[in-house]
């Protein structure tokens, strides 16, 4: 696959031993990346691996704290995105970052419009836009507002802008594509890849970030894998099989931890929830799922495999298009979260910062929020009752805080997560959906949360837990459902509950 035939050539861009700290977090430690002209380089890793941070350092959005960046063998650092663009590094972000109200042509040339007598020459601009887009196989009305076109077209326009000549800038040497295919269908993806191959021939180095591994094998020449802000390895795509790649992404040092046997065998427990052929748009396809009473079921799969979507579906945030869902023996149709809460279903969402906690409110207020919502706002929970509730959970979950009146935003990640957990435990749900409950928290808190999940099972609560960390899943799950490309591909229990088997299932039959 590799088209980089003269190995003696220098990388066009090289990042060495890049460090980046945020308050309390080491986002990047000794990260590295080398890019050669005319290659597609996949940058892979799970959420929080540091891909985006590395890209932001590279494109001038963030400044590195340590390490060096060499562009054409000369040290560089960019203070702003504009500096990086001037030096020939363009970025196309996951969300199309163009202006929907301006014409396609204007989006391509904003800031470097062709001029005549000091005024913008709209005719020439449209002509240049047509030429540029025709090389992408796109013939559209370039004078129409961008918002009139599909996301796929907008994505191509964004890439075209990335390589369009800019006023006073070097020609594009490096093009960074952050999840460019996330909202495209199969044909559109092929169209995009065609464009990428063309750019490759022109000698552009392309960084391709994605979570679709099939696409990585289809388009990329080399792969760099990151995990927890560190460089894991650099590979030739052709000589790395999928299982090895996934092992590198998820981490290999797994199989030491021994799996604890579930308290009840799967067959004996009644089902609290069962789904048959449940579908929801593009996000979940024909899901068959049985969650047994009083057990924790793990949900494994790579980012974008449909894990989070299942949680949203079972909590009534997304609606099912077809299929049957029954809860505690009764058939139900979930249309909104209030209904799910009333049934006794609770969801602890993936991103606690944006979807879970209300940072300026105190621990006490954050904990009593869900219970208050369930009771109805007219039946106010007294401050004394709130205090009792908060004290109980602070004690039970060992939340490290001087008192319940501290704002949740001031706690550490692990303690924030415990407060959010306490909020949903307070409503005493029958089924608790935990989406990535251990992300971004330290090891001590991590172990405590796993311990808590086991305790809750023993008390008879049913749980569905998603996680990217496989050894964690095997530590408490009675069975594990594996998702790939929005479909359930395996259900593992008993002997099969070990990280190697899960990994094989995630990678597909090729192992």
């Amino acid at each position, binding site marked *: 696959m590799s088209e980089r035939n003269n190995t003696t050539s220098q990388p066009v861009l090289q990042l060495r031993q890049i460090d980046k700290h945020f308050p309390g977090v080491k986002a990047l430690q000794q990260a590295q990346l080398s890019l050669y002209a005319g290659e597609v380089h996949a940058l892979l890793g799970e959420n929080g691996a540091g891909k985006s941070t590395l890209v932001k350092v590279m494109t001038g959005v963030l400044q590195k704290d340590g390490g060096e960046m060499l562009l054409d063998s000369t040290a560089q650092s960019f203070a702003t995105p504009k500096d990086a663009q001037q030096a020939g590094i363009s970025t196309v972000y996951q969300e199309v970052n163009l*202006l929907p*109200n301006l014409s396609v042509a204007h989006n391509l040339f904003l800031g470097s419009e062709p001029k005549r007598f000091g005024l913008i020459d709209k005719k020439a601009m449209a002509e240049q836009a047509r030429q540029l887009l025709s090389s992408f196989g796109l013939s559209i009305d370039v004078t129409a507002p961008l918002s009139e076109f599909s996301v796929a077209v907008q994505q191509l326009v964004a890439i075209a802008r990335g390589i369009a000549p800019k006023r006073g800038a070097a020609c594009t040497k490096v093009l960074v594509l952050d999840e460019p295919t996330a909202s495209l269908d199969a044909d559109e993806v092929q169209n995009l890849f065609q464009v990428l191959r063309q750019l490759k021939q022109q000698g552009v180095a392309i960084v391709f970030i994605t979570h679709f591994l099939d696409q990585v094998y289809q388009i990329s020449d080399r792969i760099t894998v990151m995990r927890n802000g560190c460089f894991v390895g650099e590979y030739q795509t052709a000589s790395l099989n999928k299982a090895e790649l996934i092992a590198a992404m998820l981490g290999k040092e797994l199989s030491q931890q021994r799996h604890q046997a579930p308290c009840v065998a799967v067959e004996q427990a009644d089902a609290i929830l069962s789904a048959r052929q449940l579908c929801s748009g593009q996000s979940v396809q024909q899901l068959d799922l049985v969650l047994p009473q009083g057990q924790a079921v793990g949900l494994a799969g790579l980012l974008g495999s449909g894990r989070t979507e299942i949680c949203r579906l079972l909590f009534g945030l997304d609606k099912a298009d077809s299929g049957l869902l029954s809860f505690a023996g009764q058939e139900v149709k979930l249309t909104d979260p209030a209904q799910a809460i009333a049934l006794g279903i609770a969801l602890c969402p993936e991103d606690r910062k944006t979807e879970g906690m209300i940072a300026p409110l105190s621990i006490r207020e954050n904990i009593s929020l869900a219970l208050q919502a369930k009771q109805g706002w007219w039946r106010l929970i007294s401050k004394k009752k709130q205090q009792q509730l908060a004290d109980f959970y602070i004690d039970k979950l060992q939340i490290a805080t001087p008192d319940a009146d501290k704002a949740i935003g001031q706690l550490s990640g692990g303690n924030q997560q415990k407060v959010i957990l306490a909020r949903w435990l307070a409503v005493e749900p029958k089924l608790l959906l935990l989406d990535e409950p251990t992300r971004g928290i330290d090891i001590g808190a991590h172990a405590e949360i796993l311990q808590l999940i086991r305790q809750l099972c023993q008390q008879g609560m049913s749980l569905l837990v998603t996680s990217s960390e496989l050894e964690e899943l095997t530590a408490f799950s009675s069975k594990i459902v594996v998702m790939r490309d929005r479909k359930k591909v395996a259900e593992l229990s008993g002997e099969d509950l070990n990280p190697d088997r899960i990994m094989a299932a995630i990678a597909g039959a090729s192992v």
Partner: protein
Amino acid sequence: MSRTYLPLWITFALVLLMFAAGASQFDGFASLRVVTNLISDNAFLLVTALGMTLVILSGGIDLSVGSVIALSGVAAALLIGPYQWHPLLAFALILPCAALFGAAMGALIQYYQLQPFIVTLAGMFLARGMATLLSEESVAIEHPFYDAVAEFGLELPDGGWLGATSLLTIALVLLMLVLTHYSRFGSYVYALGGNSQSAQLMGVPVARTTILLYASSSMLAAMAGIIFSFYTYSGYALAAVGVELDAIAAVVIGGTLLTGGSGFIMGTVLGVLLMGLIQTYINFDGSLSSWWSKIVIGALLFFFIALQKLLSHKWQHKAGSKA
């Protein structure tokens, strides 16, 4: 394409309709005199609304313009009267000061990430307060220059007369037309209104554009204040109360989206003309209360906001179905 221009065409049709309605009912309505009067009577509102169009296109709002009109009027009257300055010299001081005032508001909005509504509201009170501090009474202007300007103009057939201020206003409209639709600054303004974050990532100088934008709005308002002083031969601290709202109404009736990013200078011109025509119609009728103009403008605003909502909804729907 047509969807972009639709609100503009609707306003244009309403202007024609209103004119036809007046012409069919009243003798002398369909004359060049009515048209030129329309321009001279609404010159100061039109000039203010031009600046407001820029601000609204960027997704902001400027509530201070009415007060700036009053402040520049009072300042001009005082400089020309008690201080014995030549009017042109007075204007040469007032206009840059107004631009600085606007730039300061723009800088607050940009660097402290404050809401334009609040910042310009503060600017509105500040300017009105300063105007009142300068003089509580209305200050009359008597100067040969003012008389000369009043004499100057273009005689047109059919009783039409384009005075100096009307000619100035027309020149400003042309200038703003080019600036908004054919300059890089203009496209940056649209970019801000489209999505300021994307604009930043695309390399638009967001800070400079924001500051320049509010500076232009205030300077145009001061220009409107000067035009107003030629109209009234005085400066008064309590003049032009609520003109900012008339200007916003004209911009919206002209088809500019309040959320920013879409609209035309020509639309604002049509919006002002439509509001002026309604007033003219009521004057011709004689028996209608002048408050009817407010009622009709209110109804028109509702109509145009509903229209905008409808159009942008269809838009999204269309884009969504293609995606």
